[in-house]
């Protein structure tokens, strides 16, 4: 596929407005009643019941299990942090100068924690069909991530195959918060087979949750600052290690692997730490034909929440430590509480060509987007 960002005469002249910007991670808000129209009986009845419940941010009893025990002080952000329609999303993204965006769910971020596997599958399947009809077909600049229910990898593989030909979907979404076993386990083989067959990369994305415990007990902390600091990155590290220790990237060499919403400053740590362990413990992963970092350097990483060091040059150093300029994809996480405005990443001291890759080119390659 030809790169969609053509070389210009003066890339130094790029502005956020002129650049092709892909946003690798934005979130839509599910409408349980709308999804009910796509759910098989009796799950449609459950979804209509859920639609009656007053919603809270990322916390909908019956659909996104979550335990939240923050003290309710007054104040804080008063911004609407949900987007309910394709047109509302398009309008919000216009304000951010985003040209293309990949949609992830809100409540279904917690899908792996749903206890009834049949309900989990029904949620995933009805979401995917509803997403396609109400968002992706409505607004072609929005692309879909096809959610799977890790509780039933076989049914999930069937759903991947069902949508495989639809250009509206650009990746398979593996919900990571609370997933057991981790995504390297052999039970997920059908999912990787189907994704590889469909030519769709897989993308892992977590969410903060206190219970159930994965991959650590977040209730050991007293503050959301502490919990949220590790919730996403630890989940991504645990699943990254899991994929490597069972050789998923070896068995599926053409399968793209992406990681969202964990920032990037932990990636050099993982590369170096795993390579060091590998020196001593290669026998445990004899299928690796190269050191672990060589595999991870083929993965793609959403930038959000992008780190904000006092010295912005530190970000460039961090990118250099994992070849991030070739593998990082701007992501805003719009409209969530900790979304990143593209202006910040755009303004970091990257070279013009690295900037263009990070703001759009890498994502276009990873998701096989057309301009």
């Amino acid at each position, binding site marked *: 596929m030809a790169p969609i960002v053509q070389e210009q005469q003066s890339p130094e002249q790029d502005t956020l407005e002129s650049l092709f910007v892909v946003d690798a991670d934005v979130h839509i808000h599910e409408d349980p009643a709308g999804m009910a129209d796509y759910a098989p009986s009796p799950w449609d009845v459950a979804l209509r019941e859920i639609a009656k419940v007053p919603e809270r941010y990322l916390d909908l009893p019956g659909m996104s299990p979550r335990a939240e025990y923050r003290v309710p*002080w007054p*104040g804080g*952000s*008063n*911004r609407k942090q949900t987007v309910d329609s394709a047109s509302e999303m398009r309008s919000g993204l216009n304000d951010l100068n985003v040209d293309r965006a990949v949609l992830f769910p809100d409540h279904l971020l917690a899908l792996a924690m749903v206890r009834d596997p049949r309900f989990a599958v029904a949620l995933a399947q009805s979401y995917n069909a509803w997403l396609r009809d109400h968002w992706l077909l409505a607004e072609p600049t929005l692309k879909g991530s096809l959610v799977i229910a890790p509780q039933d990898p076989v049914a999930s593989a069937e759903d991947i195959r069902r949508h495989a030909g639809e250009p509206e979907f650009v990746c398979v979404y593996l919900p990571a918060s609370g997933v057991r076993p981790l995504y390297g386990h052999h039970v997920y083989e059908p999912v990787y087979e189907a994704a590889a067959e469909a030519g769709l990369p897989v993308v892992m994305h977590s969410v903060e949750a206190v219970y159930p415990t994965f991959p650590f007990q977040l209730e050991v902390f007293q503050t959301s600052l502490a919990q949220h600091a590790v919730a996403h990155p630890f989940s991504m590290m645990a699943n990254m290690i899991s994929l490597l220790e069972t050789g998923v990237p070896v068995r599926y060499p053409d399968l793209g692997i992406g990681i969202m919403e964990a920032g990037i400053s932990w990636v050099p740590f993982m590369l170096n730490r795993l390579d060091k362990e590998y020196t001593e413990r290669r026998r445990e992963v004899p299928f690796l034909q190269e050191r672990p970092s060589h595999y991870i350097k083929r993965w793609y990483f959403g930038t959000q929440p992008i780190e904000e060091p006092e010295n912005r040059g530190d970000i460039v150093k961090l990118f250099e430590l994992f070849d991030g300029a070739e593998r990082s994809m701007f992501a805003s996480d719009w409209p969530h509480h900790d979304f990143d405005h593209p202006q910040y990443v755009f303004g970091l001291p990257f070279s013009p060509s690295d900037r263009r890759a990070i703001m759009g080119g890498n994502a276009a390659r990873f998701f096989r987007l057309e301009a």
Partner: protein
Amino acid sequence: MPREYVVARTSEIPEGSHRIVRVGRREIGVFNMGGVWHAIPNLCPHQRGPLCEGAISGTLGYGPDTDWKLDWVHEGEIVTCPWHALEWHVPSGRCLAFPDMRLRKFPTRVDGAEVRVIL
């Protein structure tokens, strides 16, 4: 050469409220805090979010000012940026998280029923 602009009538911004006004190309938040007026740019120095669209509240303090005890402080004087929840103490212009960051403050003057901002 500084100039005074009439931005509102006092009755339009009762105590404890604020509004965003436009002066030329500038958006300015005008706050009435217990009868004391403050004017700041509607622009968060952190990432240029629309600061003055944020909620007004107090906040939690714990330091030399509160005798190293947890306390609810600055009631009605804190504006929180709707973008990333960074807190600002409007009267002093101080950023609570990052002491090195300050808001620009525009002088204000009340003339009869008019609130004026000096730019």
